[in-house]
């Protein structure tokens, strides 16, 4: 018997897609029954109240959560989002209902042992409701009271060897695609780099010293499976410098429509018949730079014109492989629309090696030069992308010591409004108007 009637939410139980309502109801019931004999540290009926408050929102068409208060764990400036219900009388179980962001393991692999240790902790000290995972990447523990924050943190650090993630004007929890752990397209080990930098910059992650949030994301190839180019202030995207490797026998198999060589590795195996694979139509003509052609039975690529878009490789993964001289490109400034409109990441470093042996020095150097600049010049709540827009891409090149290259632009400026500097102009800017007027009367 539910504590609150939920006629609206009940209608979200039908249909094939897993119902969050059904799950919440099952959780409410498990807590009510408490067969495991948990000594719940927050109200046992918090999930019932959560259902109740969401039902009320469905009735009103408005949220019933108040503006977050500043709560957290001692010494950290992030990792906790304070949250209070605006109808605490009706839903006392969720009067305080803070979330905790738990740093996820890179690549998001888990053992059941570890997951169970998390659920056990969260059943005891929280609502038992989570997000697997938050949009940034964290494991989200959704809903607990203020006194439990330090307890959860203590248990995480002492018993689970596990830290909190980021929030506030900090480095946010970095996130990655699974990379070389299970993907043949990976140009670098995204799990390793993501983990290294996460640890290297724990201080920046936990102690707010930035003008605003800052995000790292790691895609091990241009397919972009963690969408870094759209949602990280610094996006690390794998690429290569040398040639795509071609296995001509495998090319022949694709052309022959060999069963074991399905187009795009089987991504089109579905209810629709696209007809036999046609290398011209599906690969060569779709290459954005038109740098591929057949020479007899041989597939040729003019690699100097290839932009490594991945299309041909994706389409014929058994025949084409990424090059061997691998590294990553760094793009900067991506962000959501608040305040000045969304930005994609802009290419800052076309290619840098990924070298764990020197602790990725080439990469950390760039990161730190950017942070120095942003911390010096960034206004309150100004994302890196906005600072770059405000002070100019040139300034970014200056502070990172990177030379301008045509790779930096999609196209050169369409306006001639160049801000020359005094030392670039012969004779400097100081002039003598009296001398000038000798030649040019008023």
């Amino acid at each position, binding site marked *: 018997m539910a504590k609150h009637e939920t006629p609206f939410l009940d209608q979200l139980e039908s249909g094939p897609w897993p119902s969050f309502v059904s799950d919440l109801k099952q959780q409410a019931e498990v807590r009510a029954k408490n067969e495991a004999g948990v000594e719940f540290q927050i109200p046992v009926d918090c999930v019932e109240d959560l259902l109740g408050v*969401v039902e009320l929102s469905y009735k009103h068409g408005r949220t019933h959560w108040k503006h977050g208060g500043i709560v957290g764990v001692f010494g950290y400036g992030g990792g906790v989002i304070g949250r209070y219900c605006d109808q605490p009388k009706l839903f006392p179980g969720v009067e305080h209902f803070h979330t905790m962001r738990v740093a996820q393991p890179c690549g998001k692999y888990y053992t059941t042992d570890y*997951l169970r240790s998390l659920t056990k902790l969260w059943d005891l000290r929280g609502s038992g409701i989570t997000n697997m*995972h938050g949009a940034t990447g964290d494991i989200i523990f959704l809903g607990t009271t203020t006194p439990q924050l330090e307890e959860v943190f*203590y248990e995480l650090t002492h018993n689970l060897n596990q830290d909190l993630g980021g929030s506030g004007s900090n480095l946010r929890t970095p996130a990655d695609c699974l990379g070389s752990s299970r993907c043949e397209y990976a140009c670098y080990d995204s799990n390793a780099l993501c983990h290294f930098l996460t640890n290297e910059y724990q201080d920046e992650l936990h102690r707010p010293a930035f003008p605003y949030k800052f995000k790292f994301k790691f895609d091990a190839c241009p397919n972009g499976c963690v969408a870094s180019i759209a949602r990280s202030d610094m996006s690390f995207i794998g690429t290569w410098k040398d040639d795509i490797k071609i296995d001509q026998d495998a090319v022949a198999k694709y052309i022959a429509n060999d069963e*074991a060589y399905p187009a795009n590795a089987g991504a089109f195996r579905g209810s629709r018949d696209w007809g036999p694979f046609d290398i011209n139509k599906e690969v060569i003509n779709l290459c954005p730079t038109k740098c591929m052609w057949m020479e007899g039975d041989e597939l040729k690529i003019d690699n100097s014109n290839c932009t490594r878009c991945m299309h041909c490789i994706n389409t014929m993964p058994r025949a084409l492989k990424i090059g061997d001289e691998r590294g990553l490109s760094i793009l900067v400034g991506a962000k959501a629309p608040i305040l000045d409109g969304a930005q994609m990441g802009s290419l800052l470093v076309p290619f840098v090696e990924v070298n764990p042996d020197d602790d990725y020095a080439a990469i950390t150097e760039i990161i730190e030069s950017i942070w120095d600049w942003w911390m010096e010049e960034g206004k309150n709540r100004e994302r890196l992308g906005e600072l770059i827009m405000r002070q100019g891409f040139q300034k970014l090149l200056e502070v990172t010591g990177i030379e301008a290259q045509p790779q930096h632009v999609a196209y050169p400026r369409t306006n001639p409004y160049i801000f020359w500097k005094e030392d670039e102009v012969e004779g400097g800017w100081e002039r003598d108007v009296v001398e000038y007027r000798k030649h040019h009367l008023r």
Partner: protein
Amino acid sequence: MAFISSGYNPDKPMENRITDIGPRKYDEFYPEVIKKNKGKWSHHEILEPGVLVHVAESGDEIYTVRVGGARLMSTTHINEICEIADKHCDGHLRFTTRNNIEFMVDSKDKVEPLKNDLKSRKFAGGSFKFPIGGTGAGVTNIVHTQGWIHCHTPATDASGTVKATMDELFADFQDQRLPAQLRVSMACCLNMCGAVHCSDIAILGYHRKPPMIDHEYLDKLCEIPLAVSACPTAAIKPAKVTLEDGTEVKSVDVKNERCMFCGNCYTMCPSLPLADTEGDGIVLMAGGKVSNRISDPKFSKVVVAFLPNEMPRWPSMTDAIHKMVNAYSNGANKYERLGDWADRIGWEKFFEVCELDFTHHLIDDFRQQAYMSWRQSTQFKF
């Protein structure tokens, strides 16, 4: 319920304190085959929707069964996931970047039992617990945000709109009939906690009424200069206001015509709430992408300026999404993402074939770059 101490001593918070240890190291959690073959994968194949095999140079194979689900997830549900992983996968599993779950086994014969187990599990309400799918040229899980479950600024719900949409698109979650992958995302306010600005289809919660001003409390709860400077359109000015009881308080004044309902002021000041039953609702965007495949990443475009919040299943919204997916499926070339298709046929044709209305709201008027989106050519279709 008795308080159980973790060992933490509030009087001595620094005692034995452990900080800055970061996340657990990824390789603790890798399945054996992954550990052994990392960095040495030869190729992969999608055997059927939701089922992949990756083949290593060593010849080792790993089979992955991907299942969808609500990422709002109870510990009960997680425990059930663990149970499955223990039974079939030596206690390993992973989550994808779009909140699907991947169960991996190291040989082909383990796949069918795993699939059958997954298919058999349903919630009491009748929905699947672990629907298999989400790969290749289909629809995968919707990346989304908090909504009415937890956030203070949403203009709509996240979990509910997502459930309604995924029910609508369920066949495409389990199929690979589309011209390319189609990514749907959801964010419940303009903060856009997700990549909805770059998704094939995006659902966005949106306010349409300027903030109410809770004059009586504003100065007590908010720092007025912060609220003033938060507004991107400079719609907010400090003001002195006389309350009904005659007391004069410091507060702010909002120039309503300048407001674009972004909610930034409310982020800085709880005395400026925007939420409203009629004012709030849904914006639909389309045509974004993030991969660099063939074409550059691109932003989503606003294609439906507003749909009201129709709880609990948002039928107008799912209908519009349905129309877009169908028109795309019928019209696009193989490998062509939704935005590339719309660019190719022209947005005037997009609205025609998707049967969506074009209204003046869809013309950009934000900041100077707006004019780059106007048609600066005589090339158009009637």
